[in-house]
């Protein structure tokens, strides 16, 4: 009943679709084999913190939960646009573990009613020549896109397109290029 919702001016905020996040470990192997890019062991989740006590309480609880495993602590930071990033560090070889942690962050937000606040999750990669790459997961769409910054506010579009064709079989790539928005200076990049 899309037309009715439009007529009455209402739209339900979209929640995240998290299952496809688990396509990252396969893509990581492909990236290593075909492009020589290795995971950095860094991953982050970006969300828009809602105002009020409910959100900050939940975020504190979440960080305690993630830090309880004795590994490196999860770092929270706020970017220039008011979005919060939770940065998780893992052993670079343990991509499935990193993805599980990112998934935990996403599902905790969702369980507390803040699913619509999730913007994206990303996993960092690096090449031997120093080029950096992030696979960004658009939670609302259930799709990935590559983001490769090169220098100040410049994108290495060639590398991004190379990655797109390399991992197309391991994960669903966002078909609409206009939605491949840049995340300059994102933690975990």
């Amino acid at each position, binding site marked *: 009943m899309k037309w009715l919702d*439009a*007529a*009455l*001016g*209402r*739209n*339900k*905020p*979209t*929640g995240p679709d998290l299952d496809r996040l688990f396509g990252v470990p396969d893509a990581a192997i492909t990236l290593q084999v075909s492009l020589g890019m290795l995971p950095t062991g860094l991953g982050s989740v970006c969300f*828009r*913190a*809602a*105002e*009020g*006590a*409910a*959100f900050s*309480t*939940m975020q504190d609880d979440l960080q305690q939960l993630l830090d309880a495993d004795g590994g490196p602590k999860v770092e929270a930071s706020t970017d*220039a*646009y*008011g*979005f919060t990033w939770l940065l998780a560090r893992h052993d670079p070889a343990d991509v499935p573990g990193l993805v599980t942690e990112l998934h935990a962050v996403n599902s905790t937000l*969702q*369980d*507390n*009613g*803040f*699913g*619509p*606040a999730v*913007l*994206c999750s990303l996993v960092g990669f690096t090449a031997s020549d120093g080029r950096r790459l992030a696979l960004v997961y*658009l939670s*609302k*769409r259930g799709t990935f896109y590559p983001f490769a910054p090169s220098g100040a*506010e410049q994108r290495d579009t060639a590398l991004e397109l190379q990655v797109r064709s390399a991992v197309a079989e391991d994960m669903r790539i966002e078909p*609409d290029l*206009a*939605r491949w*928005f*840049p995340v300059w200076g994102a933690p975990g990049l």
Partner: protein
Amino acid sequence: MTTSRYLPDRGLSARMGFTIFLLGALFVVLGSVLVYYFAFWGLVFVGGFLAVQWFFSDRIALYSMGGHEVTPEQAPQLHAIVDRLCALADMPKPKVAIADTDVPNAFATGRSPKRAVVCATTGIMRRLDERELEGVLSHELSHVAHRDVTVMTLASFVGVLAGFLTRMAIYSGMFGGRRSSNNDSGGAPVILIITLVSVIVYALSFLLTRTLSRYRELAADRAGAFLTGQPSALASALTKISGEMGRIPTKDLRQAEPFNAFFFTPAVAPGFSISSLFSTHPSLEKRLDQLGRISAELGRPTA
């Protein structure tokens, strides 16, 4: 168990639905009178006029506000905010434009979400901080998601048609009097009936479209606040702009909306500005009340 913090406003939806129903009923009244008296061409003419206005709504609004599209390189901050809001809302990214005027305003227009354009003035970007600007843009993007240009163009159809017929009746009464007396003697009452019905329909539809417009503003506020999770930032932007608008000389305001005067339907224009048309917008108090309720809902402890 997944909970949702989004609280639907059934009252608002019901009021909006009822207003649309009344407008439809008015159209049936006017339409049956027209079809009865074979004034079908008026229907086609006004329909075509509004269709053109709807089809070119993005270009008309941009042109009249003096807005020009900007690339991500020209306005990285504005683009980044829109990028993120669109990713949050899962909607295609509209074109982004800036209008060089000091009037603090923003609007979104375009016939569909894919052909939409969001425009902010340099005045609003100067006055608001990033959070507030984001709130304003989320309000405008909600207009796009709700397809408000299409809905309001359809809603204004009855009123424009009635206004058009009233004018035509007056002109034909002034210039065509001799012809009608020579011909059939039943000509005068027909014009009288059409005029009378048109005037009544025009008055009623004028009130209804404005009511509907106010409801849609509330709906956009609400959707925008849930999108960013920051109802208070939007509230603060509204307060700032309303305060500023009062202090700006009227000349600037008139310059900002020339195409409202250009079309003979000032009631509803195909652009949705956040503050230039006060009467089509709910009172600041009402909007702040609603945002306050949303803020309380977002802060409610998880059960």
